[in-house]
């Protein structure tokens, strides 16, 4: 096994949606990222694993605009981009679901999907009285949920706090995946969930992939990673130790690479 930058079969001609080249990020004398490169192709689930302090979070923060890399390049659909804020990444269609679930518990599902990008009514009611198009947003929310194949959320008027953990995660994922986003980044989406709810979320990830939306998945849970990932990017000591596939390596191999007991 020599391929440290393995590409999915048959995708050599395809253009990566998101590319990172030689990202370096230091915090004082601590090196968070030491020249990391990454390619995300359309319609794949790329998992990022690594021990604590391996640079997973820093890598994700650089990809989503939460941190600015010291050097290195980022490209979206081949075009160089520079993210200074999370909003910049969002404007390029990169949506992140944070570990602590950025949903407002007392607001209903539709309001959460449209939070921060509410739509107003047409005509004077919207322009002068700034009135929200509640009905329209609910209809669109339902359409988006159907399009994304999220079946666990039947009623978009239910407050999010009345939902189970898996359903809440589905709301957060739906918000990230809805409305024309290009890349969805999920940070430990199954960390706080039970077995059944984890499976719901993993199915959701597969559904998103099958609809052509690439997903970056950060997780500590090896079975989950090997369950849904097409490729696995292993971070070790600020560098990409290897990029493997669930077919080419076993979980034991992956853990060995992660901890430095083996090389790819």
């Amino acid at each position, binding site marked *: 096994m020599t391929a440290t930058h393995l590409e999915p079969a048959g995708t050599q001609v395809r253009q990566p949606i998101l590319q990172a080249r030689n990202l370096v990020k230091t915090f004082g004398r601590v090196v968070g990222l030491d020249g990391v490169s990454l390619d995300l192709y359309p319609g794949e689930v790329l998992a990022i694993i690594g021990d604590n302090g391996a640079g997973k979070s820093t890598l994700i923060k650089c990809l989503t605009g939460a941190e600015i890399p010291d050097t290195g390049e980022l490209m979206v659909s081949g075009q160089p981009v520079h993210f200074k804020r999370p909003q910049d990444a969002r404007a390029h269609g990169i949506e992140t679901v944070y570990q602590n679930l*950025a949903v407002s518990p*007392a*607001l209903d599902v539709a309001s959460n999907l449209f*939070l*921060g990008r509410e739509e107003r009514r047409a005509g004077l009611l919207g322009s002068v*009285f*700034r*009135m*929200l198009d509640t009905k329209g947003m609910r209809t669109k929310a339902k359409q988006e949920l159907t399009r994304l194949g999220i079946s666990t959320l039947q009623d978009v008027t239910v407050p999010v*706090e009345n939902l189970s953990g898996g359903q809440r995660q589905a709301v957060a994922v739906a918000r990230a995946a809805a409305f024309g986003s290009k890349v969805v980044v999920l940070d430990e989406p199954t960390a706080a969930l039970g077995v059944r709810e984890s499976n719901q979320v993993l199915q959701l990830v597969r559904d998103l992939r099958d609809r052509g939306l690439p997903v970056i998945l950060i997780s500590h849970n090896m079975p989950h990673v090997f369950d849904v990932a097409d490729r696995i990017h292993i971070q070790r000591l600020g560098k990409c130790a290897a990029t493997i596939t669930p077919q080419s390596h076993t979980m034991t191999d992956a853990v060995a690479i992660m901890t430095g007991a083996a090389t790819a």
Partner: protein
Amino acid sequence: MTQQQIAGPPSAESADLAEEFLDRQTPLSRIRNILHRYPAVSPALVLLISVVVFGLLNDRFLRVENLSLITQQVSVVGTLAIAQTLIILTAGIDLSVGAVMILSSMVMAQLAVNSGLPAPIALLAGLVVGLAAGALNGFLVTRFRLPPFIVTLGTLNIFIALTLLYSNGATVRGSAMPDLLTWTGTTFPVGPVRISTGVVVMLLLYIAIAFILGKTAWGRHVYAVGDDKEAARLAGIAVNKVLMSVYLAAGAVLAVGAWIQIGRTNAASPNAGVDLNLDSITAVVIGGTSLFGGRGSVWGTLLGALIVGVFRNGLSLAGLDVLYQTLAVGVLIILAVSIDQWIRKVKS
């Protein structure tokens, strides 16, 4: 025993949901869910029951003149409570509402009477005072990240001192003021009953704020910020901007409250409204708005203000000492907050 047996014979589709919500199928928890979804239901019930009870205790209570009197007695606190609701929805609290209102009313009265400015200008100056006070509170809360409780405890004292310094402790009588300033104290007949203009102004404010909170993006952002500040920020909401605008809006509402206060008492007194701060919080809390933010409505607050008014009026008509009114209000507050805590357990 499987879970599905407990939930009853489910259809294939509802089986999953029944399992999710299995732990709240008792009648009591169903009531809790309704109260959770419609927080104004419980104050509405309390108001209805108390009106019926006081009506049975004393037949003078339900006369239209008495009901009209209650609304007038409620108009000032009811207006302050609108501002208080806005702040509490963001998980804050404003101890300075009464002080801001009194400062604003003194500026209105002094400018119109002692400085001889035209009444509309005096009213505008009062509005500016309200906005400036709101801006100060908002600035301290957003820029210095101080808890609203501490900020407004400080500004409460500052505004009281400013009021006394500015007015030299002197009351301005309504008879000396231009008509526009005391206009809110005038009444007009509707059938057999006289309605006060100040009450109408208060109700218009309620309608306006309820619309803004319920039907605009800004309103939704106010709830989101109070609910979970971090979640709101990650959703792309400019949290500090929302907070600042809430304090400014509250300041504007308080200036209107100052105008209503001048009409209601037919005077502008620097010593009025000492207990208005706590009364406004009482109305908000009894109205079902959560002190933890993100939950509640101004209609609940209106009901809360009316409940307090009805209790005070009804108990005094029943011939009870004023101390018992205060006692009853105290019990109401504790009951209201206990119910709020119980409702919030829906989170499971």
